[in-house]
């Protein structure tokens, strides 16, 4: 049919497929690179052989250290980037990310409270992640509760309250840091800088499963997200239950962020930069954007982690430092090239 050949929309769908294919190839390459680089050098060609043989030191390194770490990098990067994309869609504001919405502030505060006051259960490996998650969800709930009124959610109010909660949480955090011991101070700071060096495999797999689940749920809300690009009122005119959709999207974004924060600490910027870059390439249609941001975020964090492990090897840089620097520079580079609305 004629309209098939001339449809711009269908050409765009083909462009998405191509781009997603390229991203998948890049993902595979960065996973292989991540598995092979480190103190113990493993050649790319040898990875599969070692995994099959199952009885060497290199196998132990791969199986116990590098594979879990790469999985964590992928799922945390994907989750943060997806959460950023979702929140930017709901708020129609390109500067929103999970960490400007009070989620990371709450998580940091939760962890700090656990470190400073929870002397008895501080030793359990799951105590800090649990408190981080609790803090993330507590602040989310607070933002949500404070900004819903008689006439439903007020999106602008929600944004402002999120920023305020973030400020209050970081002030409370500073207060705790100023009254506690040097030893506690160090563990708070270490956690705030983020690290993918997570020994607990349960947390790693939880993080992978929840972020993939988050991606799937987000795809059920792709029509509301696209309609919301026109604004809340016009989305309603297209038959979208905006209040319900915004609620679900917000909860999904907070949940996957909360899990990520509890597994890897505070890693900023991923949720801001990756969605932006992908939007610039693919456009703002969420059907392509969600998956691409997820994979893009995963790639970005895997590569950042490789840098963090190798730059001052055998020491390790905090991953948050790398993402902040790398992300900021890339962002400015792209921004100065072209500025697009939406």
């Amino acid at each position: 049919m004629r309209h098939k050949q001339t449809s711009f929309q269908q050409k765009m769908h083909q462009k998405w497929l191509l781009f997603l294919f390229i991203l998948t190839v890049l993902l595979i390459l960065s996973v292989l690179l991540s598995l092979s680089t480190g103190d113990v050098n493993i050649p790319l060609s040898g990875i599969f052989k070692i995994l099959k043989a199952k009885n060497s030191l290199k196998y132990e390194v791969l199986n116990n250290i590098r594979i879990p770490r790469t999985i964590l990098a992928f799922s945390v990067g994907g989750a943060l980037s997806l959460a950023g994309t979702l929140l930017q869609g709901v708020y129609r504001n390109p500067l929103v990310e999970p960490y400007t919405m009070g989620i990371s502030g709450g998580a940091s505060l939760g962890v700090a409270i656990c470190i400073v006051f929870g002397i008895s259960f501080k030793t359990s490996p799951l105590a800090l992640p649990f408190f981080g998650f609790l803090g993330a969800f507590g602040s989310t709930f607070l933002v949500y509760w404070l900004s819903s009124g008689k006439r439903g959610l007020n999106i602008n109010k929600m944004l402002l309250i999120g920023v305020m909660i973030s400020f209050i949480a970081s002030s409370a955090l500073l207060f705790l840091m100023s009254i506690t011991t040097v030893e506690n101070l160090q563990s708070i700071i270490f956690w705030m800088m983020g690290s993918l060096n997570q020994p607990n495999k349960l947390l790693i797999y939880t993080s992978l499963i929840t972020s993939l689940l988050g991606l799937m749920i987000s795809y059920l809300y792709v029509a509301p997200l696209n309609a919301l690009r026109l604004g809340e009122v016009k989305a309603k005119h297209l038959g979208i239950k905006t209040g319900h959709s915004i609620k679900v999207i917000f909860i999904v974004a907070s949940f996957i962020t909360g899990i990520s924060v509890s597994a890897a600490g505070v890693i900023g910027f991923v949720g801001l930069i990756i969605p932006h870059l992908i939007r610039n390439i693919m456009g703002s249609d969420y059907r392509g954007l969600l998956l691409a941001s997820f994979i893009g975020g995963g790639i970005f964090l895997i590569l950042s982690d490789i840098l963090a492990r190798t730059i001052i090897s055998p020491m390790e840089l905090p991953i948050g430092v790398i993402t902040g620097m790398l992300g900021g520079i890339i962002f400015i580079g792209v921004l100065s090239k072209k500025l697009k609305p939406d």
Partner: protein
Amino acid sequence: MEFLELKNANYGYSKSFHLSNVSFSVSKGTLTGIIGPNGSGKSTLLKGITGEIPVLHHQVFLKGKDISCFSENERAKEIAVVIQATEPLNMTVEEYVLMGRIPYRKRYQLFETDKDFEIAGKYMKLTDTYHLRGKNFSTLSGGEQQLATIAKALTQEPSLLLLDEPTSHLDISHQVQILNLIRELTHNLGLTVIMVIHDLNLASEYCDYLVLMNKGTLYKNGSPNEVLNFKNIEEVFNTVVITQENPLSKKPSVFLVSNKVLTDSSKNKYK
């Protein structure tokens, strides 16, 4: 059974602004204009029908069914709304028009069907925006954006089209182009259209039926000849006007009378 019926409609944002006891009905395939001063409740009236303002039971009926019982999705398949485009949108015109198919998309369906493309293409051609389909929406002129917005609304395949001031900010040629299109939609496609419109002369010229609102209630409704006489207009708008019949269309035309003319003419009277 009337196509759309309001029975003692009482709704609004809050206690401070509320419609009180508005009753009128609209037949299928007609063009109705809602006129009245700023703050008289024109947009509120529209928003109750679009679902933006919740309406209690037994106030608004579409095809005999109580509109408060429609689900969001059912409503979007029956009623399409055109309001002013306010923000820049980074999407092609085709992408924008295809959004009109969202109410018809199934939960797990990601992509448009051939039928969606066909319908969107049909209405882009009808609104003369087909040649713009690859362009970015933000780069269009105000008139072109309005036409594309109407194309999106028609792509929803509604039975009722609501427009909030479709011709404001447009020059006279685009005003006429859009109103001609709207009249064509009602008379040729059998679409029922209700629009809020400020310009009394355009309202008179194009609408089959007018609803004059004042202070949150219906002041007068009927054909343009019944509604647009100087008495009604002076009473509601608090402005001195002269009305005269347009010699070609036989519809009333409204001329405003400025202060200066008014004082000059009264001086002449006493000379």
